[in-house]
């Protein structure tokens, strides 16, 4: 089976003009993600695991490398080069991202926040709300919170809202950045169950987990990142 995402030689560094510094992040990453399989990214803090996910979603502009994405019609797009409009289209239809922290429109109820991706795809409001209620229930979010904006929620509650929003649209490729970091054990079990469910539905996942145990239980493939090269070596590589 052909992978949905093939990353080849991906590197990211940040050039901070004001401080005149080059901050290295991930370097020379190779990995693949396939339908119905979960690829876990592991490595020490600072190895650039989150940067890889953000590059795929194009929240970060990759410094070098290729990220070939194959869509449902078999078209291949290098996400590193894709136009902004193409990226917006893929974000809406194909690629979901459960970030480490919840970023959402303020003053919207938790239920509407979770619905957003479905509504953006054109699903009717009531149908998307129905699905959102189902997911919030599965994730143990107390019903009294559904109508309230998540701004005042606890870390764990926000994370579950974030997860529900990421799972609701059944993307083809789902990026998960420590989705269980602040969850209690029973909710974590629910999340594992949900991840396994969408895996059987054929969603490809690229994930970072806080606990090694979760990697063991969920990953079909593990990619280890190492700490980035020293800045001087990057500069050398750039000039040579």
């Amino acid at each position, binding site marked *: 089976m052909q992978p949905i995402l093939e990353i080849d030689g991906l590197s990211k560094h940040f050039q901070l003009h004001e401080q005149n510094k080059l901050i290295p992040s991930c370097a020379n990453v190779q990995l693949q993600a396939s339908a119905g399989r979960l690829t876990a990214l592991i490595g020490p803090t600072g190895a650039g695991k989150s940067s890889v996910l953000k590059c795929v979603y194009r929240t970060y502009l990759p410094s070098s490398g290729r990220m070939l994405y194959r869509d449902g019609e078999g078209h291949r797009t290098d996400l590193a080069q894709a136009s*902004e409009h193409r990226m*917006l289209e893929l974000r809406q239809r194909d690629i979901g991202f459960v970030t480490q922290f919840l970023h959402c*429109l303020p003053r919207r109820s938790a239920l509407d926040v979770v619905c957003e991706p479905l*509504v953006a795809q054109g699903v009717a409001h009531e149908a998307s709300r129905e699905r959102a209620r189902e997911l919030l229930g599965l994730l143990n979010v107390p019903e009294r919170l559904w109508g309230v904006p998540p701004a005042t929620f606890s870390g764990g509650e926000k994370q579950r809202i974030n997860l529900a929003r990421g799972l609701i649209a059944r993307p083809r490729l789902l990026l998960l950045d420590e989705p269980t970091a602040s969850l209690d054990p029973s909710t974590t079990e629910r999340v594992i169950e949900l991840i396994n469910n969408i895996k059987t539905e054929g969603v490809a996942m690229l994930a970072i987990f806080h606990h090694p145990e979760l990697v063991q239980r969920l990953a079909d493939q593990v990619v280890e990142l190492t700490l980035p090269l020293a800045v001087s070596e990057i500069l050398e590589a750039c000039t040579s």
Partner: protein
Amino acid sequence: MKKILEVRGLSKIYGRGCPLCFDSTGPEVDTNICPHCGSVVAAHNVSLDLHEGEILGIMGESGSGKSTVVKNLFFDEAPSAGEAIYSDGSDSKQQWDMFALNAARQRWLRNHRFGMVYQNPHLGLNFNVSAGGNIAERLLMSDISHYGEIRERARQLLARTEVLVDRMDESPKKFSGGMQQRVQIAKALATKPPLLYLDEVTTGLDLSVQARILDLILEIQQELHTAMIVVTHDLGVIRLLAGRTLVMKYGRVIESGLTDQILEDPQHAYTQRLVASAL
């Protein structure tokens, strides 16, 4: 997604201009005033694409040229150079080469296809007529002339933008700043334009009023699928509204990208400083 607007090489010079203007101004030389002839290069070589139902942000400090761009696109001013093609949503084969049209055709396009909300309500509203009258003016310009129908539409629009309908016969002069902006939005939306320009619409309003106006803009965008160009110096407004963003300085677009990328991984030194200065 269909392209609704395509702008190429838009430039605007205030003053007589000289052949050295463009080379002698811009972010590299830290000015937009030409040292040779004293002209102000408000915008130079601005290009952008806008798709149906999309919100594009233009971000920059005062004097960066961001308002100049929308003023040119709304025909408030004529550009010194450049091209803009507007394609109609219902039949994208219908295209207007905007700056090549005569004044009457430009007025038609402006009244039937575009809407504008200015920072200063005095520019967008006629303070000598009532709030309802302001909306009626716009409807009349777009060929709706039945009195009862106009009055009913005005009532609906003001209700939609949360202006007290009981006050529709008062002059907007007597309204608060936030209410005046709501009347402006109602007026701009009266003809359900496919393209709306918003120029610093929340600047100078109370935070709570800002929030409600931004929510209203988002709701309307989702309801009517209106394409918008949002000009602002406020990163919060950009974050909330825009999917893609252009950053301008001294009349030039120095960076453009997906809004989350501009805010989290800005490339240009100026954008990095701007993002780092956010409160």
